[in-house]
């Protein structure tokens, strides 16, 4: 009787933990394979423990070139997309103008369109316009699909901001520029940083759109795709594990920071309304 009660209360949690196992198992496998010495180039099974892959991650230099290229593309695309998207978010939250629904549609549609369609249509455009595909066409494509995500992320942060803080700054003789730089920007910055991180990870990991528009330029996902046919060097798993560790570190740091600002921030101004304060 007690057991059935317990089961009735906890089966959802049990299923949830199983599903979480399904979601995280491949990461554990990637981490394990990064310490593997494969028995042959085309084998995906765990064979023998080794530290070689971590000690010489660039043993296959093509792969490291591809990683560097992905970082370069990701960096440029992130900067451009973050600037364009943040400007759009400010316009949408802070201003009234005609044509708003059209702009909203233009921002929403790229997020709802299959990557395959965006990739092939850009390819059709570049080919018919005679633009050779390569590094810069990939950057153009990445900015295109990152902008919408930046707008959505920054908009959420801006909409939750207490406008009275800026009015208070104006009351205290701040010029509009000073109010923006000293009050608005610091408050929106976490949203902008989150948007930039999201844009970078989308760009770094994109395969489908990149594949159609890269020409002979090889990014990291494209390298993995090509290598899957010829045999994957185990160092690919080193990169996968390192990416995971870096992302985890960033999440950990931001949650630590969030916790600290909450602790410091709360007693100082308990009445300013929850929306303006909520960190992260």
């Amino acid at each position: 009787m007690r057991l059935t009660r317990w089961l009735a209360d906890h089966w959802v949690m049990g299923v949830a933990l199983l599903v979480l196992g399904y979601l995280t198992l491949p990461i554990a496998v990637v981490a394990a394979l990064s310490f593997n010495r494969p028995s042959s180039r085309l084998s995906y099974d765990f064979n023998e423990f080794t530290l070689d892959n971590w000690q010489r991650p660039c043993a296959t230099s093509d792969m490291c070139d591809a990683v560097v290229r992905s970082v370069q593309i990701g960096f440029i695309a992130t900067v451009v997309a973050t600037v364009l998207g943040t400007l759009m978010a400010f316009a949408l939250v802070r201003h009234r103008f005609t044509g708003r629904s059209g702009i909203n549609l233009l921002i929403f549609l790229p997020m709802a369109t299959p990557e395959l369609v965006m990739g092939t249509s850009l390819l059709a455009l570049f080919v018919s316009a005679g633009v050779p595909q390569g590094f810069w066409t990939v950057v153009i494509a990445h900015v295109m699909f990152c902008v919408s995500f930046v707008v959505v992320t920054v908009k959420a942060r801006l909409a939750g901001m207490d406008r009275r803080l800026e009015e208070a700054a104006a009351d205290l003789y701040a010029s509009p520029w000073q109010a923006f730089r000293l009050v608005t920007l610091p408050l929106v910055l976490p949203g902008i940083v989150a948007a930039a991180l999201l844009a970078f990870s989308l760009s770094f990991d994109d395969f489908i759109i990149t594949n159609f528009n890269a020409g002979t330029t090889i990014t990291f996902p494209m390298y993995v795709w090509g290598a899957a046919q010829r045999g994957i060097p185990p160092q690919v798993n080193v990169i996968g594990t390192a990416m995971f560790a870096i992302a985890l570190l960033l999440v950990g740091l931001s949650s630590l920071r969030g916790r600290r600002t909450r602790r410091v921030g709360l007693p100082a101004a308990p009445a300013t309304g929850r929306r303006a304060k909520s960190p992260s």
Partner: protein
Amino acid sequence: MTALAHVPTPTGQPAAPPPLPRGGRRRLLPYLLLLPGAAWLLLFFAVPLFQLAAASLYDPSGSLSTGYALTWAFGNYPDALQAYWPQFGRSFLYAGIALVLAVLMGYPLAYAIAQKAGRWKSLLLVCVVAPMFTSFLVRTLAWKTILSDNGWLVGLLRDVHLLGPDGRLLATPVAVVLGLTYNFLPFLVLPLYASLERLDYRLLEAAGDLYASPVQTFRRVTLPLSMPGLIAGTLLFFIPATGDYINAELLGTPNEYMVGNVIDSAFLVRLDYPQGAALSFLLMAAILAVVFVYLRRAGTEEVL
């Protein structure tokens, strides 16, 4: 002096919470802010769609080297569909099965995190998005190891006779559907979680007080209240899953190819642009049709 000049700006509004101050000069500002981003999206998202439509109507006898002529060859559509309807149908079949599996797995997960996890909530949420921290292709390849013929999973399934002695998981439709489910599950869980998190636990207690069984409570209270999240999540899952071809390529064989594999080879290997463009357009139209019918039946058109 600039500081003083800007401060009082008597707009005639009372001091309390004034609506956004609107000056004549500022009317242009939103357009200036929108211009670069909107131009980028128009030029590299909207215009290419027209270009793709044009390419799908090119004369199929042309080629990249000799150039294509736009001859309004609508025949490209039935031709492409006739040649590749198995792959086309498979895209929707696999994505559909994966979606059902994902809902069965994702709903309990989202519910447990939102309502039962307590102080473990953020940790479990991080676990849900953790797969996205590493490369899509690398973790899809990890499934090759997990489902490998020499792996423990296949060994176990053979031992309990769920698989025959020569039974395989890799290079079967099962592997492709499992991969699709895995790769897009977080997109389904996150909006669902957001919906369930806002669910007031007292409503469930009230249902219990009114003698509703747990099943009734779920059907009459929890499920309807989580519908917006479920609809958003299923769309976020289904659209990329239908257009995916990475799982079919890495975990399947040409017998499991989806329409994406065909489009990829049409554009990059066979260089048959009219066919690739026609298939691309058909895919988008079919997805839009499915989404439209679905939203109609789900009764929440305001999602779009």
